[in-house]
């Protein structure tokens, strides 16, 4: 739980979400910025990863910029068909995440394809197999000002 986190762990998590330096000796730069010895920052990160507080350390890539297709799609699935439709949608490798949500639009999934034009093809296939409409909601603009998740 949160309480178990040392103030230095919090400091590391808060400052390292976007700012790992890109230079030959990044830990030395961080050590100066945070006023924590480099070895201690590294050992704390190692433990935070082992304990599951940090799920990843490294560069985060933007899949779309690499030429793939990405979208968020929603469906209004009749409750009595929910399991059947879930199986159908999840069977597609291109469905990366799928969530049930408490709304008439009750199924929300992320489609990620190797090529942008494949998004429409997969959506057509899902519509054909389920007989239900798929609402394709690709992002038109992103308002992302760097993650700053305070702990």
């Amino acid at each position, binding site marked *: 739980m949160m309480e178990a986190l040392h103030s230095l762990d919090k400091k590391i998590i808060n400052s390292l979400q976007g*700012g*790992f330096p890109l230079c030959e000796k990044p830990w030395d730069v961080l050590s100066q910025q945070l006023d924590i010895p480099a070895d201690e920052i590294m050992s704390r990160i190692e433990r935070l990863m082992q304990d599951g507080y940090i799920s990843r350390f490294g*560069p985060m890539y933007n899949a779309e*910029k690499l030429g793939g297709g990405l979208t968020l799609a929603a469906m209004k699935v009749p409750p009595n068909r929910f399991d059947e439709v879930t199986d159908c949608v999840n069977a597609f490798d291109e469905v990366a*995440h799928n969530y049930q949500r408490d709304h008439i639009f009750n199924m929300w999934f992320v489609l990620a394809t190797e090529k942008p034009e494949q998004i429409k093809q997969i959506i057509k296939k899902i519509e054909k197999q389920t007989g239900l409409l798929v609402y394709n909601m690709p992002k038109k603009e992103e308002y992302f000002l760097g993650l700053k998740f305070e702990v």
Partner: protein
Amino acid sequence: MQTSPAEQTVYTIDNIDREIIRITQQGLPLVREPYQAIAAQLGISTQQLIERMQAMTDSGIIRRTGVVPNHYKLGYTANGMSVWNVPETLITEIGMTIGALDFVSHCYQRPRFLPEWPYNLFAMVHGRSKDEVRDKVEIIAGLLGDNNRGHSVLFSTKILKKTGLRIKD
């Protein structure tokens, strides 16, 4: 550091960049000189690796480099997808304001489907409980004032599938 879309440069990746992506998408090694370790694996100089990763960061291919906290483990077990109907003419300004809030992790403009889906702005709101998420949604509503033409918050009731977004080689 994150580069805002307006400042991004265009950069076309080559085979060496693809190798860099393949090796680093699972993470950087937790060693004193992580870039040197990656460069050695690829048979290029550390300086070349740093320049390429800088170019990918400047062009937005790398969103950012650092740690990804596990929201659940940190006690932020509730998340709600808040959706908003806001005037199209003001949406960039509104999106920037909402995206800057510390409890919002993603903020996107998406298409409406009238009449059944009037919402054009999505903001993922995190909290320690559903009530905390609802309180934060009300903070957003307060900020929007008259520009809020309707909103809703959708909580996830079940994860039906979750696989990593894999970048193909």
